[in-house]
């Protein structure tokens, strides 16, 4: 009962001219207040669609969404009207998008865009909203927030724009923030700064955070628990340390070893062979079998179930690494 967000059997499909794309196939996940979870996977595995579905931001048509349960903070999101969702979005749950330049309005100053948040969700006057916005910019480490308040998005650097988005997401102190690849478009040095800001604000405000990324090194820096997604299904779920020290799914292991290391001396980059299969033509059996080094006949024929393997871990694999 103490879960902030509870999603059971979430499915999203897109009917297209070339067939039905099953973007998300029965995802279960839950988030406790104040914790940071990560959803990891390659492009096209359905992680962004999952997050948009939880915010009810998928436009329908074309998307069709279905779930057995989707509760947030005691409210059943499935039954809320669009008008009620507008009150929740930004106030109780908000989102940080990947590309800050397209997420911000180019013809409005960033100050005005921040003001909008306060004026929509609280009873602040314009003047109060302005000082609140400047304070929010200050909290995310934008230098000279009084001057920056009057800047347009194009006048800021990529890292600064991402900070503005973070300021906007934290403005009303929501209970849950979904960050969709918040640092992918940034340089490594700026990435480190932005992640530090994000983590500091998350801890100070006790906000729950869903971090969506393809980069496990970002996850190692931030998350408490990790869900690994592949082709619309969760293939592994584990607490951070367990996942990183003893990955059980071959896909997780592949993702882990593909991160370039500074320390080891090998001269080749470890790769997962092939590409993510097209969502129109998913393979039979286990979706990962076409790229898996441990594939057997059973894997080609039967999709493994997501089973509880103890220690708060779930796994979808016939042949887990490191024994049963």
């Amino acid at each position, binding site marked *: 009962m103490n879960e902030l967000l509870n999603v059971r059997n979430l499915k999203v499909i897109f009917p297209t001219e070339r067939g039905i794309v099953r973007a998300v196939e029965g995802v279960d996940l839950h988030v406790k207040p104040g914790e940071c979870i990560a959803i990891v996977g390659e492009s096209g595995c359905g992680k962004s669609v999952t997050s948009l579905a939880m915010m009810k931001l998928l436009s329908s048509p074309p998307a069709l969404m279905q779930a057995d349960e989707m509760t947030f903070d005691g409210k059943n999101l499935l039954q809320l009207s669009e008008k009620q969702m507008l009150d929740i979005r930004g106030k109780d749950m908000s989102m940080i998008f990947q590309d800050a330049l397209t997420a911000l309005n180019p013809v409005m100053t960033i100050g005005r865009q921040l003001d909008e948040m306060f004026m929509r969700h609280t009873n602040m006057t314009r003047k109060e909203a302005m000082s609140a916005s400047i304070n929010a910019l200050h909290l995310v480490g934008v230098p000279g927030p009084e001057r920056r308040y009057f800047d347009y998005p194009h006048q800021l*650097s990529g890292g*600064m724009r991402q900070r503005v988005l973070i300021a906007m997401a934290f403005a009303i102190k929501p209970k849950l923030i979904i960050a969709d690849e918040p640092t992918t478009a940034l340089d490594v040095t*700026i*990435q*480190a700064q932005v992640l530090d800001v994000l983590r500091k604000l998350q801890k100070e405000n006790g906000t729950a955070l869903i971090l969506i990324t*393809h980069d496990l090194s970002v996850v190692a820096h931030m998350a408490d628990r990790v869900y690994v997604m592949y082709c619309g299904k969760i293939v592994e779920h584990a607490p951070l340390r367990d996942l990183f*020290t003893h990955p059980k799914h071959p896909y997780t292991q592949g993702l882990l070893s593909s991160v*370039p*290391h*500074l320390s080891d001396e090998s001269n080749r980059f470890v790769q997962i062979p092939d590409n993510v299969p097209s969502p129109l033509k998913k393979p039979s059996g286990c979706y990962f079998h076409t790229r898996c080094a441990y594939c057997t006949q059973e894997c080609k024929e039967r999709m493994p179930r997501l089973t509880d393997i103890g220690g708060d871990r779930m796994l979808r694999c016939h042949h887990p690494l490191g024994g049963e």
Partner: protein
Amino acid sequence: MSDNNTLLRTENLCVWFPVRRALPFGQKRYVKAVDNVSITIKKGETFGLVGESGCGKSTLANTLLGMQKPTDGKVIFKGQDLNALSNKEFKEARRDMQMIFQDPFSSLDPRWDVYRLISEPMYIRGGYTKEQMEAEVLRLLHLVGLNEDDLHRYPSEFSGGQRQRIGIARAISLHPDFLVCDEPVSALDVSVHAQILNLLMELQQELNMTYLFISHNLAVVKDLCKNLCVMYLGQVMEAGDTQTIFHNPLHPYTRSLLSAVLSVNLDEKRERMVLNGDIPIPIDAPRGCRFCTRCPFASARCFQETPQLTPQGENHLVACHFPGIGMEK
């Protein structure tokens, strides 16, 4: 300096862009995108160029390929000064130098199929019959790990990694000696990085090419490059042998870049040095050391006097007044 092993070198290369003046009689100002850079790239090696966005990496690459005229200094490719060549000679020389772009989504024309994309350089060069061209495109497709089924598909049908393979096939279609890879993996998923980097390494061995590899992530460069050059605001901060720089980084900027690389090893303890602020706007770059505004160890001298690139041991150059300052040990 210029021996037979050198493929390309620059001599005090400067690229300055004039800034429009606020008043007609105001002082003329410049963005010094590349300022006094001298590098030497040897035949068959992979030369790494590292730095944040806005440090002049891409401008330098464009200048090396002759797409940007230098304000001062020379680019010498295979013993000839690129900017002294006639148009015809330049076109000849340019055939031997090609480029792989960062974003495989915008560098491929969405209305062209794979065959047309890859054959375009051959078409421009001329002298191929239709059969030759087709055979050549197929050979290139196999070389980069695609197959003939892909020949008449459009870029939108491919994933990011596959698109980058198409871009690579196009770049090597005229058998260049020199290939500039401008952040070839930073727009891709981490899991695809390895595929593309391994492909580039295989192709280099097979086709005997020289790479200039541009990146902002030192972890990617480490295994790929023999020599390395770290740039900041248009100037070289540290240069030399990759292994030496990784084991003994002497410039504070190099160390901050190293510490910014996140690791998947939860127990690894490394020096954390997160820089404050962004790279400054390079109009009227600061006097003294370019890095002084963000350097945690900057002292009065750093604001007054520009440090010169000075040798610190064999094949290791550092532009810092206090190399190795504040290092543990």
